[in-house]
């Protein structure tokens, strides 16, 4: 307590206040004192001490003024003292309340300051794994054909020459076998030969053997060719085979299906073109090209400046194949296709080395989280 406020321990009489005019200056001094003290409030603790000093029930300044000045004051001064005290009380209470709000706001500001996060610091990322890009591509292709009513089937990678070749109209000395250099399995003497399928097409035959038309299947799976590995070759890679056979399937249906698929996979602006080609198990046969999804056909690195990209082989099922599965070639017709999954992934994501898919370097895998 300062000397001035010590005066509240004395009565007015002791202070020599006898006239009404003396009351106002006295209260003005107290108020000035209060205002100075209010300035010094910094935090919650000093605010509490300040409040108790002035409003404390037992020994607050206002209590002293009430007890020492107001109560014993002579009647002629009562009115003036009472009025001045009320004014002072209103001022003190309002000020202390305002001071409280200020202190609290400051405290909150300080707390927020302390709790402030550095937004540029990394969050805690719980690790999640990535599906392999080939798996994602398989699923993307499968989804498109599922939406067209195709059922997914799978078949063995270890096949017989019959399913891999003969039943697909590729007899033993067919020159096309040169393009499908084949791995054979070591077999005990006398055991029938087995090979690693060179395409997913054997499942065309296996499916038709078991199922009457209508047939609509896709066959995702791994296939093998005896090629030395490099940026565009691998002795194992992945395909999705498709087959649709029914009473009324025509080349127009084939074209429409292929075009729909290509647009779904590469985007609505991509155009499709069918180039006549040759596969023993389809006729007419076609290579499916798409206009370059990157440059739109004007020529770029991805399409090797051709504007078109060769995607996969396809065609109407060669009636000779129906002969192997007891289908009536005169009544049934259909189409088939076989697409390389790696090729689709490479084109879509600009990957230039096939080996990346099989090295499984996590720096590659993580890119497709």
């Amino acid at each position, binding site marked *: 307590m300062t000397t001035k406020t010590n005066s509240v321990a004395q009565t007015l009489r002791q202070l020599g206040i006898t006239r009404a005019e003396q009351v106002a200056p006295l209260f003005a001094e107290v108020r000035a004192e209060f205002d100075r003290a209010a300035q010094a409030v910094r935090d919650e603790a000093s605010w509490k001490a300040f409040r108790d000093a002035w409003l404390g029930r037992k020994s607050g300044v206002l209590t002293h003024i009430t007890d020492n000045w107001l109560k014993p004051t002579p009647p002629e001064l009562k009115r003036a003292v009472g009025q001045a005290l009320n004014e002072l009380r209103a001022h003190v209470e309002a000020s202390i309340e305002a001071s409280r709000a200020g202190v609290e706001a400051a405290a909150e500001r300080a707390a927020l300051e302390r709790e402030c996060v550095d937004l540029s*610091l990394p969050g*805690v990322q719980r*690790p*999640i*794994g*990535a*599906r*392999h890009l080939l*798996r994602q591509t398989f699923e993307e292709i*499968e989804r498109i*054909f599922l939406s*067209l*009513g195709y*059922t*997914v089937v*799978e078949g063995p*990678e*270890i096949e017989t020459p019959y399913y891999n070749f003969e039943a697909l109209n590729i007899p033993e*000395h067919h*020159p*096309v076998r040169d393009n499908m250099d084949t791995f*054979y*399995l*070591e*077999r*005990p003497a006398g055991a029938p030969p*087995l090979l*690693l399928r060179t395409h997913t097409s054997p499942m065309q035959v296996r499916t038709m053997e078991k199922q009457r038309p209508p047939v*609509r299947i896709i066959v995702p799976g791994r296939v*093998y060719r*005896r090629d*030395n590995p490099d940026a565009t070759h691998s*002795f*194992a890679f992945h395909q999705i085979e498709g087959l*649709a056979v029914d009473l009324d*399937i*025509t*080349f*127009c*249906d084939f*074209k*429409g299906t292929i075009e729909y698929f290509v647009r779904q996979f590469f985007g609505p602006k991509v155009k499709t073109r069918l*180039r*006549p*080609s*040759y596969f*023993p198990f389809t006729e*007419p046969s*076609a290579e499916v090209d798409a206009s370059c999804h990157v440059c739109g056909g004007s020529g770029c690195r991805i399409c090797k400046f051709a504007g078109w990209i060769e995607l996969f082989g396809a065609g*109407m099922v060669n*009636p000779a194949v129906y002969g192997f599965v007891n289908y009536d070639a005169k009544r049934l017709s259909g189409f088939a296709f076989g697409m390389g999954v790696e090729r689709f992934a490479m084109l879509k994501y600009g990957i230039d080395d096939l080996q990346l*898919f*099989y*090295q*499984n*370097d*996590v*720096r590659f*895998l*993580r890119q497709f989280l």
Partner: protein
Amino acid sequence: MKILYNWLKEFVDVTAPPAELRSRLSLTGTAVDAIGDSPAGPVFDVEVNTNRPDCLGHYGVAREVAALYELRLKRVEVKLKEAAEKAAGVTRVEIECPELCGRYTARVIRGARVAPSPDWLRQRLEALGQASINNVVDVTNYVMFELGHPTHAFDFDTLAERRIVVRRARPGEKIRTLDHIERTLSPEMCVIADAARSVAIGGILGGAETEITFSSQNVLLESAWFDPISIRRTAKALGLRTEASTRFERSADPEMAELASRRATALIQQLAGGEILAGVVDVYPGRRPAKKIELTRKELLRVMGADVPDKEIEGILGALGFDPVRVDSARGSSGSLMAAWECRQPPWRPDVERDVDLIEEVARQYGFDRFPSRLPPAKQPAARLPHVEAEDLLRERLRGLGYHEIIAIPQVNPDQDALFRDEGVTPARLANPLSEDASMLRSTGLVTMAATLAWNLNHSQRNLRLYEIGSAYAFRGKEPIETRILTLGATGLAREKGVYETQREYNFADLKGDLERLGQLAGGLAWESGAPAWLHPTRAGKVFLAASAHSNGPSELGCAGQLARRVAEQFKLRQEVFLAELRLDPLYRSYFETRAALRYDPLPRFPAVERDFSLLLAEGTRFAQVVEAIRALSIAEVSHIEAVDLFRGGQIPAGKYSLLVRITFQSREATLTEAQLSGFTDRIVTALEQQLGATLRSE
């Protein structure tokens, strides 16, 4: 096959510039991969489909161009100025094996001057990648590239008795071919012989002793037809592919043999002079009548789904040499649905035998782009693979647990495979691998997983969590078996150091916990000790399906643990590596059973209470024994028993360890009272003390 633009123009008056011709040809089935430049003009690099031997010569490609542009294909007319003396008077041809050689023609040119070829000829051959040798040999190559039919010139005077015998090779018969390599033949092979010995491997390569040299004067020109399958077998057996064998193995045109002979003879005379003996010695046992094929509009519509006008059908088939003639009763009416054309199979088109082959010819020349597109209606509900729901959930979990998916090529090194292979498994070896390192189909995914971990560690990626869903291959008896498997591989940190995290190494408990998370899909896993030799003997276990108790006893899924250091060393894995492999089919089956049986469990209405028991146990006492002892009390209110802390050393005496067990009590009937709880805990403590010698540390 390389095709010279200017050479094509000798047979068809095409005016389209090379680039345009290239794209039109490509869109009708003659794929031109590139256009190059040469002194002989633009060179097309044509990828000829294996069913089109006719396009292995300029004349055949010119026919395609003529059909494409509706131009006339010029005939190859050759008039020979022959001497009076007859060829048949100086030589003879016998075919002893008509099944291998369907036609053999011989012409004789006398007094030719063998010399270097003129520039125009050299240029053309060189543009096609064929070295020039001399004018006579160059002519045979020239005619082959022109008409697609190989011919061969012998030095007539070197032929014993100046005659030709076409026969099977004798067992072990030897011949030194033009490339000066001595080759041993077998009776499946067709040879051209003279009276004494073989002088050429029929349809593949001539012999060195009878070749044309600069001193040769008299020439016997062979133009023949050989059986494609025989040629293919022989070429394969000898490892000898030639321009000639490529053409004969795809079935050359037997009718072309005589024209090619005439063309070559005329050119030899033009370039080397000499006189041509009259006539051709032509032995033709393989002559076959041209096949008739009928094409109907009905069938065309059935296959193609859209029509092609009569005029186009007839124009295309006519230009390609099929001589279409309308044979139906509605002949007068164009566009009739009844229309039928009788066509003749030209001898240069062995690939066209059926109506569908004609439909393809019409469709490709008419243009695939002119057929409309349609999306056929779906007729059946689509289905995914039967197990795919389980596999998707498995992948989803693995992903959430932080494992990246790998896809490995399953051809592996047999020694590495053997490290992981269970006894009694017959591996699948390749008969013709590309290398020893890829000569076996993996019998487990662990071998490829270990290699993948090694690859990544070698590329400074040391914190790895990987999985593969793939196949393992083996034989059961003579039957190949492909087994669906899940392989996990992990090493390095389970948690990396961060601002808010401490780092922690991946350990066995991580592997076990992750597998248990996966096992929850299938009703949970059970573990047993014991592990194959490739695993760390004391940090590994066998994994079973917990749910399989109700079928045929516990079903073993696989095993899991730390890779044995001895094996890790083989892969140069210098840090602790954890591996697991599970068979998936039983897991998937159990998933579907578990899922089908899954029902809602009502939430408890009363609070659960946890009590911690700090136990001092003798080393060797297992947590499972603690659980068992508690469970044996059959206190229905015990809902969970967990191990929450474990430590050794410090104040714990040797031979003991401290285990903090947390038991959750839960009643479905009422809130548990203190009296009930202390009753339970007393019983538990007593049981543990009596059965396991456990002592309770101060609580």
